[in-house]
């Protein structure tokens, strides 16, 4: 069915130039994943301006390769330094760092990279088959369905994100409000500018991402006073091959992690809960649950498989529905718009070479990625030996460059600093940042879908309930919204203590 399309994609992805782009992207991405304060989302945001002059397919290959690299990079710091570079690699530290301290860092890293690869591959295969079907279905969607899906996207942050649901909701609202600032494209009216000329242009989400995640994260890591004490890498071909001989033992864990990862991952904010869930399942079904947390290889395999499967699955709603599943996917979506492509189901009809080139590049990118990180781990780990007094200004300057490049405007660098401070305060007070960014990206789309729906129904909100597909999605969304209210009540009913909130996605 999709195979000839996939073949077409490979013809695009496997050109020397695009392979070169993938290698560059993965190298940059892994460096970004290793560095404190730079993660997938803002790494992609900073480098987005560099792609403005590229052909769209090469541009998306560069950005997705950065994303894969950042996912791999997160595992390196988790295992060798006990510092999760990304929230979904927190579970990897539980057994990865003890292994590294026992001198088995090489085994842990090999297991982590291989698991990442397996999880990612599983999701890519599913995307290859599901994406065209989902896009086909989505072609039938009207504005009410799209608004319902966006409603669902944000409700799942509230219901499944863990943490304080009120604060999650406020983050979402703030994102939408920031998106509304400036010119209203429907009526041509200025709003929320309060007479300031600078506010007329509105807030660019790329600048927000760089500030919130980049600068905010640096301030936070400064406060925690991180010091990097590395365990030895201990990587060589021998270790890699020996570990590969052991890994088939964990076949069940691989399958379980991949399925959990994909299932959680195509919903927003899914990667982190997926990694924890996969870890918990692996421990429960293990013959030696007591070894978990002390350096069990399976404890590295489980979360890494799920996290990567989820990270890749987040691309599915982005390319089929035009709704990103993660902040990184949101930045890529912004990229699509800048390159002049219309995100959403029409992409499969109008730009098949772009979509299938992208899907094929997921295969090539992950294969190149796993080989590169296996070969060059010591080099990437050495980056963290650079003193903080050099790293911090370099990261801040790179963030400033990225912010300025979006519109060539100085005010954006100021916004970046302000968003940095907001990010720092919000993170400390447990306001989640990912929904804010997603709302900022989707703001105009969501508002238009809402307006068009209301015009269709002449102002009645019932349109979101009476149309069958929209109604089903809305029902699910409402369920997610009330979930935080129901959960403690349900737990009390079953006599269980109200648990601590799960760690959240950034």
């Amino acid at each position, binding site marked *: 069915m999709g195979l000839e399309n996939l073949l077409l994609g490979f013809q695009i992805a496997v050109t020397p130039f695009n392979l070169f782009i993938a290698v560059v992207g993965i190298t940059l991405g892994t460096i970004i994943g290793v560095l404190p304060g730079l993660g997938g989302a803002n790494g992609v945001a900073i480098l987005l301006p560099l792609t403005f002059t590229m052909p769209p397919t090469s541009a998306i290959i560069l950005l997705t390769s950065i994303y894969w690299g950042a996912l791999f990079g997160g595992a390196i710091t988790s295992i060798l330094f006990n510092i999760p570079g990304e929230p979904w690699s927190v579970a990897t530290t539980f057994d990865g760092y003890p292994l590294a301290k026992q001198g088995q860092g090489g085994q842990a890293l090999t297991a982590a990279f291989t698991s990442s690869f397996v999880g990612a591959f599983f999701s890519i295969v599913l995307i290859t088959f599901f994406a065209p079907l989902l896009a086909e279905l989505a072609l039938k969607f009207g504005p009410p369905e799209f608004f319902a899906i966006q409603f669902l996207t944000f409700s799942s942050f509230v219901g499944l994100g863990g943490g*304080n649901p009120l604060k999650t909701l*406020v983050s979402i609202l703030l994102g939408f409000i920031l998106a509304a600032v400036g010119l209203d494209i429907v009526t041509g009216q200025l709003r929320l500018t309060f007479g300031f000329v600078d506010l007329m242009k509105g807030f660019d989400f790329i600048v927000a991402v760089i500030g919130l995640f980049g600068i905010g994260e640096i301030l936070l890591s400064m406060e925690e*006073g991180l010091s990097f004490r590395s365990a030895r890498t201990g990587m060589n071909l021998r270790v890699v091959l020996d570990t590969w001989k052991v890994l088939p033992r964990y076949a069940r864990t691989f399958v379980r992690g991949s399925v959990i990862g994909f299932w959680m991952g195509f919903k927003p904010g899914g990667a982190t809960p997926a990694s924890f869930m996969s870890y918990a399942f692996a421990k429960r079904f293990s013959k030696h649950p007591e070894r978990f947390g002390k350096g069990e290889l399976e404890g590295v395999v489980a979360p890494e498989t799920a996290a990567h499967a989820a990270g890749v699955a987040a691309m599915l709603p982005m390319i089929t529905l035009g709704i990103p599943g993660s902040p990184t996917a949101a930045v890529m979506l912004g990229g699509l718009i800048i390159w002049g492509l219309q995100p959403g189901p029409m992409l499969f009809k109008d730009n098949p070479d772009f979509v299938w080139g992208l899907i094929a590049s997921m295969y090539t990118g992950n294969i190149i990625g796993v080989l590169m990180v296996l070969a060059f781990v010591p080099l990437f780990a050495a980056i963290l030996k650079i003193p903080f007094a050099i790293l911090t200004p370099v990261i801040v300057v790179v963030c400033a460059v990225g912010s300025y490049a979006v519109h060539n405007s100085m005010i954006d660098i100021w916004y970046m600093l302000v968003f940095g401070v907001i990010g720092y305060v919000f993170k400390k*007070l447990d306001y989640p940042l990912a929904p804010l960014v997603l709302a900022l990206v989707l703001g105009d789309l969501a508002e238009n879908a809402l307006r068009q729906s209301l015009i269709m129904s002449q102002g009645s909100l019932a349109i979101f309930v009476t149309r069958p597909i929209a109604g089903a999605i809305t029902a699910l969304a409402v369920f997610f919204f009330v979930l935080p209210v129901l959960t403690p009540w349900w737990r009390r009913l079953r006599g269980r203590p109200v648990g601590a909130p799960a760690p959240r996605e950034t």
Partner: protein
Amino acid sequence: MRVADLVTAAFLMLIGGAVIADAVRIGIGWGTDGPKSGFFPFWLGLIMVLMCAAIAIQALVRASRRAFVSRAQLRPVLKVLWPAVAMVVVMQWLGLYVAAAFYTGFSMRWIGRHSWLAVAAVAVGFPLVTFFIFEKWFLVPMPKGPLEAWLGY
């Protein structure tokens, strides 16, 4: 944490209030061609004010009394923040590259206490590399100042 929580909630409520006021000004009802410009922002602002009120009540009832940030924690944060702000101020006149050179050099010498040789090497080398990558290869212009003008860029 309680004070910080309350201040943040109050600040967000102010923003919400301003949004509501502006939305009412431009119209929140039904215009000739569907909902007016203020319709969506009005509801966003209203719900935000209500949610922030709930957060404030929550904070009053059960927020921890732990300090939002201790003096010892704040110092390294400010050590990064104010030189960064200074760099952005300087950037308006000297351009990004020169500002970056001063900023990197300052941070290395003041926080890292690196040798002057290392300071000079990184402070000159890093902006140069940035210049070639962005300005030359990818043709992304950055703010420039008198030095670049003197060199003919």
